[in-house]
Each structure stands twice: as structure tokens, then as C-alpha cells.
């Protein structure tokens, strides 16, 4: 093995006893206290078809995108907020926290380091949730296809609903992709969260294959 004697982890996740300012002592188990590691469940759509259609229409018409720029393609989100393309007239808004957003906008190449954060953010989003991947890099690696540190296919790690090709795609193409996503949701085909829960083991195995410092529970909503 290499001579590199890396410190084990940047944050200590071992069990330990902590003394509070009042003098009490109590045990802290960060893996359980800081995260919840319950496995994801499949949440089937409502049984009443017209109701589900209405819900899906609402979901499609009010898209909250997670403002997490994961790559160079994220720069194409900014014109969409501005007066030139103005996505808010189509019901597209940006939220700064994964808890409140429903669409994950993967902007371009995802390095392994970013992928770890992508997986965590994705799992923290509340279902039903969708992934919107732009740029060639998320599809087949794009110009980074032979990079030692950039993933090639995003759909092996999280379920992707819509791909937009281009390097980078124009904002018009992204608006068109949002239209496609809306159509998918309205037709009831946007069940990425359930797909993730169903094939959880497979996705996890793929993620763990490349993320070397797995210092979190398997699922940390």
C-alpha cells in the first residue's frame, strides 16, 4: 500500500462521550444522531386516478429547482432567471435548500467529489422528485469521457428523468427540456424516486464503487 498516511476522516464519526457545558456527560453516536439511515420506501401514487392527474399537473406547473451548480452547465441557469428567458412565467423557481426543491438540475460534468454531494442532496429532497441533467458529460462523459475523476453516466448513480444534450445547451434547449419534464410528470411517468427506492441496492453499489470515503450512512434522506 502507498506511503500516503491520510488521516482517517475529516470529521470524526466514531462513538464518543461528550461533556456538556453544564457538566453532564452523555454519549454521542454521530452516525445515528446526526443522520437517519432508514431505507427509502416506495410511495405509490394515489389510487384515485383523476386526483393523481390533478396532483401531477400541480407538480408539473410548480417546479422548484435546487440551486446547486454542480458543473459548468449550471451557468445556463442564470439567463433563465433573468429578463431574457425568464423561466418564472412557466412556474419554474429556484430554492436554496434541497428540502424544499423537487427538481435536481445537474449542470454538466460530475466529478467523484461532487457526486458524493449530489447523492446526499438528492436523498434529502422530498419525493416525488426529478433529476434534470444537462450537457453531454452527464450522458456519456462528454469531453471528459476518459477522465480519471469524472463519471460517465449519471443514470447509474441516480435516476434521471430528462437529458438535455449540448456542450453547453442554450437556455432555449433547457426550457424545451423543462417542457419535456412537465409532459413526463403530467403523464405520470416521473417516478424517479420510486425507481431509486426499488433499485436501491444497485444504485448504492455503483455509488460505493467510486466514492472512496463513504463516511455517511447508506441513506441519509
Amino acid at each position, binding site marked *: 500500500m502507498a506511503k500516503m498516511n491520510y488521516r482517517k476522516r475529516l470529521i470524526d464519526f466514531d462513538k464518543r462521550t461528550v461533556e456538556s457545558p453544564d457538566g453532564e456527560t452523555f454519549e454521542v453516536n454521530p452516525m445515528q444522531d446526526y443522520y*437517519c439511515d432508514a431505507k427509502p420506501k416506495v*410511495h405509490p401514487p394515489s389510487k384515485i386516478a383523476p386526483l393523481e392527474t390533478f*396532483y401531477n399537473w*400541480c*407538480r408539473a*406547473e*410548480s417546479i422548484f429547482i435546487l*440551486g446547486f451548480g454542480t458543473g459548468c452547465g449550471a451557468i445556463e441557469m442564470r439567463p433563465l432567471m*433573468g*429578463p431574457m428567458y*425568464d423561466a*418564472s*412565467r412557466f*412556474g419554474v*423557481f*429556484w*430554492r*436554496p*435548500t434541497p*428540502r*424544499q426543491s*423537487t427538481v435536481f438540475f445537474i449542470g454538466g460534468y460530475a466529478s467523484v467529489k461532487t457526486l458524493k454531494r449530489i447523492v446526499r442532496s438528492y436523498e434529502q429532497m*422530498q*419525493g*416525488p422528485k426529478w433529476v434534470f441533467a444537462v450537457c453531454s458529460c452527464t450522458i456519456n462523459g462528454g469531453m471528459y469521457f476518459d477522465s480519471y475523476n469524472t463519471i460517465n453516466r449519471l443514470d447509474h448513480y441516480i435516476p434521471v428523468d430528462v437529458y438535455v444534450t449540448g456542450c453547453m445547451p442554450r437556455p432555449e434547449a433547457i426550457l424545451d427540456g423543462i417542457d419535456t419534464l412537465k409532459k413526463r410528470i403530467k403523464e405520470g411517468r416521473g417516478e424517479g*424516486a420510486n425507481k431509486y427506492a426499488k433499485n436501491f441496492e444497485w444504485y448504492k453499489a455503483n455509488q460505493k464503487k467510486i466514492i472512496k470515503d463513504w463516511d455517511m450512512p447508506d441513506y441519509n*434522506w
Partner: protein
Amino acid sequence: MNIVYAVATIFITINYGLVLQGIIGKVYARVATRIGLRIYQPYINIIRQWVTRTSINHGIMYYLGPVFRFTGGGGILIFLPVIYGAPFFSSFSSAGDMLLIMYFMFLGTLGMALGGGESGHPYAAIAVTRGLAQTTAAEFPLILAIFSIVTQYQTLDVNQIVAAQQGSVLNWTLFTNPLATIAAMLAFLGSMMRSPFDVVLAPQEIPIGPPTEYQSQFLAMLMTNRTIFPVAKTILYVNLFFGGVALQDSWLLTFVIFFLKTFFVYMWSVFVGVSFPRFRVDQSVRWFLKAPAALGVLAIIFVQTGM
């Protein structure tokens, strides 16, 4: 029967608030030369949050936070004479007075602080400290102004305050006690969560304030309250300073007056909001404790000396 009226009042206010939110979103967008969202977009946003399939609860206080917030907004509303003299819209206004309403105004913030604190997110904790500091500073000139008009009218009952302003436009507090009105209108900006005092909830700052961890139905509850609370507050201001909304001969005319008054008082915060950039918390606290607080003190002196 009052309960039915109160629920109906809250329901109508929610709808009015949602439409107002759409209009204001449009105003903001047009100022930025955008086309802007659809007027009915706030409705979809709220329904969309209600029908989220999963949600996470972080504890009892986290659960109660939105409830407290809703109680704050709804409480102000049902203890106010929304339309003075009408049985329908006054609900419980004879049962509560100014002190109760002032209490309700702070209840929501406190509930949010406790709920956001229990979510365990560091951003929520920072935003709670910021929010409480700013809200407290903004309440200070408001309370001075309310002291002033309470001594002016010698009553704590909102109904009587409104009654004293009837008859002529010149009977409004705006003209009988202008200093208190100005102080209170400046304090109004601080509690509407619009620029320049929106550092607490602004997405570009430490995101997104106390509700960082709130999602799904919890967030829907908060969004509902965010439509009620500003409207309730606006109605309070209309009652205290702009003569209230008295029942006219026809209901239509009453509603027209109601919407005009609340709309323009609400718009005051929007006009300021689109024109001025954001204050930091220390700046806004200092700002509230200077001119508005001084005006409030002057208003009390003005009333006491009978000038």
C-alpha cells in the same frame, strides 16, 4: 356562529393574500423587466407542497412551529374588526384588545424560532437570531406608536379606536396623530419580510432562514401563513391609522374600500422593497432605533402634551 365567521374570514383572507402575492410577484418581475409568474401561481405552489408524498419530522417543536406561526397570523385576523360594524367579518373582535394582538404578532416569530431551532440546522439557528433581533427592533417603534394612539383614544379596544375615526377622512389617525402613523409605517416595513429588511428569509443570504429544514406539508403550512400574516397586519394598520373599513350601504362598496385600503397599505412595503437594496441585520437594527424610534417617542410627547 362566530367560529364559522372566523373560519370564513381566514379562508377569504387566504385567497385574497394569494392573489395579492401573485400580483406582487408580477410587480417585482415587471420592475426587473421580466414577464413574471402567472397570477395563480401561488395557488399551485401551495397545493403542490400539500401533495408531496414524503415528509420528515424532526420533533414536537418542529411540528408545532408552523402551527404557532399560523396561530399568530390567524389570531390577529380573528381578533380584528376586519369590517367594522359588520357581524360577518368582525368575528371575535369584541373579545380581544390591542395587547392580545401585539402578543399574537410576536407569537409566530417565537414559534418559528423554536421550530427552526429544533430542526438542528446551523443556518436555521443563525437566521433565528437574526430574525428575532430584527423583529424586536422593528416592533419597538410600532409599540411606541401604539402607546401613542392608545393614550390618544384612551382605549385598548380596536373597535373603539376604529369607531373614533369614523365620520370624516380628517378623523383618521393619519391626520390626528401623523407622527405615530409615520413611525408605525416605518416599522411596518420591518415586519413584511421585503427588501430592505429581508435578510432573514432571502434565498441569496444564508439559505433560506429558519425554514431551511422545513419541507412538504410543513412548508405548505408556512406558505399559507405567509399569505395570511401580511394581510392581517395590513388590516391592523388600516384599522389603527387609516380609519378602518366601516360597513357601507352596499357590501360591494364596502369590499371595494376594503381592497383599496389594504392594497395600498400593502403596496407601501412593495414600493420600498423594489426600490432599495438589502440591509444587514446590524444596519437594520440601528435604522429602526434611530428615526422611527425617535418619531415614536415624539408621538407620545405630542399626545401627552396635547399639542
